[in-house]
């Protein structure tokens, strides 16, 4: 009964939406990989996601956010890129 209601909504103007809804289906993913467990263990040991820590000063962050009207994430990413060098980050964001 619920299904019928759903179907009625899919009129000729909305035929595409039915196709589209398949995109967001949560089907169970394929589960058939063959893997060498030793190699796997090595990979995990080698590449545990440890990110380098870069010290970012709050006032640097604030300065650039305010001067260039940017979001924190953008500025933070740029400061990480410049290893926390505020001058370089500001110049780069100004296109210099």
């Amino acid at each position: 009964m619920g299904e019928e209601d759903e179907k009625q909504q899919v009129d000729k103007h909305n035929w595409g939406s039915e196709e589209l809804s398949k995109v967001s289906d949560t089907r169970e993913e394929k589960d058939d990989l063959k893997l060498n467990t030793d190699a796997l263990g090595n990979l995990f040991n080698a590449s545990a996601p440890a990110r380098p820590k870069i010290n970012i000063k709050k006032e640097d962050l604030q300065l650039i956010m305010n001067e260039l009207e940017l979001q924190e994430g953008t500025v933070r990413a740029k400061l990480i890129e410049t290893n926390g060098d505020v001058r370089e980050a500001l110049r780069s964001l100004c296109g210099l």
Partner: protein
Amino acid sequence: MPTPPGQSSSQPLPAKELGYFKKIVKSYEQKQYKAGLKFAQKILTSPGFAEHGETLAMKGLILNCMGKLQEAQDCVRRGLVSDLRSYVCWHVFGLIQKTEKKYDEAIKAYKRALMLEKDNLQILRDLSLLQIHIRDYDGYLSSKYELLQLRQTQRVSWLGYIVAHHLLKEHNLALGIMAEYIKNNTPSGYDFEFSELILYQNLIMREAGLPDVALQKLEENSTHIVDKVAYMETRANLLMDLEQPKQAENVWRALIERNPDSLEYYDMLEKCMGIKDSPKAQLAMLDGLAEKFKRAAAPRRLALYLVEGEELRRRLHEWMIPMLRKGAPSLFASLVPLYKYPQKQAVIESLITEYVKKMDDEGYGNVSLDGKDQECEPPTTALWLYVLASHHFDRCGMTQLALNYIERAIQHTPTVVENYMLKARIYKHAGDYDEAARWMEEAQSLDTADRYINGKCGKYLLRAKRSDEANKMLAKFTREGENAASHLTDMQCMWYELESGRAFRSVNKYGEALRKAHHIDFHFNTWIEDQYDFHTYCLRKMTLCSYIRLLRMCDKLRDADYYYQGAKLAIKIYLRMIDRPDDMNEHSALIKEGMTDQEIKKMKKKLKKQKELQEEEEKKKKDKEQKEEGLQRGPQIDAEALLKTEDPLGEAAKFCHNIHTFGTQKVTGYALCAEVYRRKGKVLLALKCLNEGEDREPTHPLLHVQKVKFLAYWPKCELSGLVKETADELMKCVYGAERDAAELNEKFKIEHQHDFAHRLAYAEAQYSIDSSTNLISWILKSIEDSKVNGRSLKMMIKLKDGIEYGKYGKWSKDDMEKLRKQVHSLFPLSLDFGGGVQHKSASAAPTSAETN
């Protein structure tokens, strides 16, 4: 062991209710929302469970999927308050925050849920999706790491983890994991997904700066690659990177063999052959290929752009005759690049007039345009020749000739829709928007089943400021029983939003115009939102190269022309709010000094009208609400509210951010942003935009105006420290050693005295630094000065709008009349300057003074 939903709660359910709860979850997963709600109701009406947290959460989730957003929010919040220790409640709270686009909040909620229920796959997946969605690559990597450890045999776990490393530019890690994956899972035969994977591996290698390895792997796996074109293109590019132009050339030639009409291949071929600077060699190459591929248009067309004089004439002749015989609609479009050069334009014109003369002399029943006696032209050749001639003279601004030719074409075959469209277009270019719309309606009436012509007609009506009629016209192709405007907004129809916004602006309805501009912004948001589903879909389907392209495209989606046009519309209105606040009253133009009695009458009328309109709108709204039962669709933006903003500069700056951030090539965009940021006191941003503009086109008139205005403002800036240092550096880039605004402007005037647009820029800049300037007679003289280039109708309209805005000082009525007369003599059809076609019957033929 994972805890199933319903048992994680601090409010445990008895067996019967637990059964219902499981059914809710199942109904939700199968998208049977109404059934789900019924089961939820059963639990919530059982004694003691009216505030059962997880049930409320599930109910909210279902309501959310049904579009009842507000109700859903309330439900989920209530659920969370009742049961703060349930991971289900936190998870659902996160999902709801996500639909509200509060991503940071959603991520926090997911993390809370994961603290309560470690290793929950679904929550980890949802978390990772949001992390990639907001481009938190670090977070994405660690979520994908967790997922991979939990599900080591699942493809998507691996792919997600590889993608995460790739996006973090950790190419070696990505490639190492990829290699391990490929080693153990190479299929024996045809496998599309594996083919995609190989191409993705190659993409990473190229981005890692390893073209040699990439090429080697590509060759090794060549039999696995299904997409042969992608294989060949990648190979050719790699060979070029590795400086093996000879081999690359062979691959491009093989690609041309597959598709001899891809312009890109010819471009690459020229690069490989090292003949970019030698038109002669290019021509030889193109002629060789034209000989080989008899039916290919590209080599013949590209050759047209390389030659001049007699040679051009000969080639044009060979190019045009078959297309005239066939009636190829693209003929004129293929000639457009030649119009940049007056001499090439003249060659086209001489050919066309020669054909026409021949046609006239010999009669189109027995003429042969290429002089071969045995053949005579089909009767339609004459028709397409007249159409081409009309296009040509329209392009050259010779309106009367263009009209004559299109008239001949219509006489020849009165049933061709395109003829009337072209006629309308000629009137549009000549500035008579009413006549243009009239002819477009005529064209439309000849083929009422064609959506394209219907859209064109709507557009032309909007240009003629007839919004209501345009909507009626467009409604022929929109959903029945619904307002055309709101349907077109649903359909994300951008040209409509833009044209409609401009039409509102032209009748001083700035609120409505702003609303349309915000719709465009809304559509872009929707598209960025739409990528969400592809984070799972692309990994599952293994279309990883396309996925990476999608992510990168979304990152700079707003660098699109429609966005720019919409933003420009909005920003200019926000600036007008500050400069001319009285304009925001749409009836302000009607109320003039010294009309007290009439003024009162008009005010009364106006108020009455407004009231009626408001009532009507409210009624409509109510009807709509009843129809949709609280379901909200599309952007809910109120025009009046937009006009009442406290911070127009801030609103404008939001649009500016999206114009200059993605490195657009539009110099006018940087100029507009510089204006906003200067007013806002954001010195670095203003300078950044000026500098970017300087890199693109340093002599652009609009950029110049901004440079002068900023230089005049510069001494007033009080900066210090790092900001000052950076600003000084930018100043040097933009101005060199020049620090005097007036001097800069005088230099510009001398250097560009033969360009009308530059003259206007000089004048605007001069008025901005010295309000006592008087350049009115100089401007008027410029209009008539045949030594001044670029005196187009478009520029004249800009001048007129600029005068009304106050950019060029105070113009008296006499001055305006002089302007009108002068421009009228140049562009007699322009409505803006009192021209246009007069119809005997129509007594209400509009004159410029009233319509503007």
